[in-house]
């Protein structure tokens, strides 16, 4: 399947879900790996296989580097943030994530070697908004950045760090949410 918009369901094994959550918790705790961008944001890639309109996540690839402040990507991100992000007291330079091209190439190569497809990227929302206490849906910025990507935006709510949750949206569009099922290994159930 070359277009993910026709997918009926995404299955995520619980062990991989734990990997995603642990990545988020580690970044929030400020426990950074060597060579990792020291920002309390978690960004990563989910990959796997597709069979009969069901995507199964088989690989979690936490992304280490945020190229947010490297030119020419900085100019691009500054423009995107200024035009589409909600107002915030956080400096512009600390908002948004864009993958380092070389690291991304390594991710692509790893997926190709393992005969997997990249389904999309995940990132977390950590601050509740007025009228949106959970923050498990894409922002306007998420939608703009996901446009024409043919990827899912996996949004993780880490508002309550003990009760994380995740939803999947095709190209970051709110109305294109796809059911995401956390499955137990060898015993698929929600």
């Amino acid at each position: 399947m070359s277009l993910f918009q026709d997918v009926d369901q995404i299955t995520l094994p619980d062990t991989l879900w734990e990997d995603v959550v642990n990545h988020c918790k580690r970044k929030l705790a400020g426990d950074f790996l060597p060579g990792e961008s020291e920002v309390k944001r978690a960004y990563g890639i989910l990959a796997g296989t597709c069979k009969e309109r069901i995507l199964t996540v088989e690989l979690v690839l936490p992304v280490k580097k945020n190229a947010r402040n490297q030119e020419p990507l900085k100019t691009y991100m500054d423009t995107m943030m200024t035009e589409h992000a909600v107002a915030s007291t956080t400096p512009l330079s600390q908002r948004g994530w864009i993958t380092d091209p070389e690291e991304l190439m390594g991710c692509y190569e790893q997926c190709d070697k393992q005969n997997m497809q990249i389904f999309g990227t995940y990132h977390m929302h950590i601050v509740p908004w007025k009228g949106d206490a959970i923050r498990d849906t894409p922002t306007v910025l998420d939608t703009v950045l996901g446009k024409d990507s043919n990827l899912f935006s996996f949004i993780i709510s880490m508002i309550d760090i003990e009760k994380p949750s995740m939803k999947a949206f095709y190209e970051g569009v709110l109305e294109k949410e796809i059911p995401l099922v956390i499955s137990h290994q060898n015993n698929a159930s929600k």
Partner: protein
Amino acid sequence: MATIIIPFPFRKHTDNQREVSVTGDTLAKNLENLLALHSGLQVIHDQPGLLSIFINGKSINATTTEWKEVAVAQSDEITLIIPIAGG
């Protein structure tokens, strides 16, 4: 013929092909021939400042116009990368 590796999100424009073989002595000629085969990949060209190019894993500075004249050998593998961004 050189081989161009198509980034995941853009394989919808190549019938899900991972790689496309093209001819051309320079990077510009290779990309021109790639677009002739798969016009949908014009979206890559339409994102100035975002495109990164690697030849056999080595980064080519695509922020200047000089990259267009970089020589390409038949055995070369060209990888095109558009970074993925999020909020």
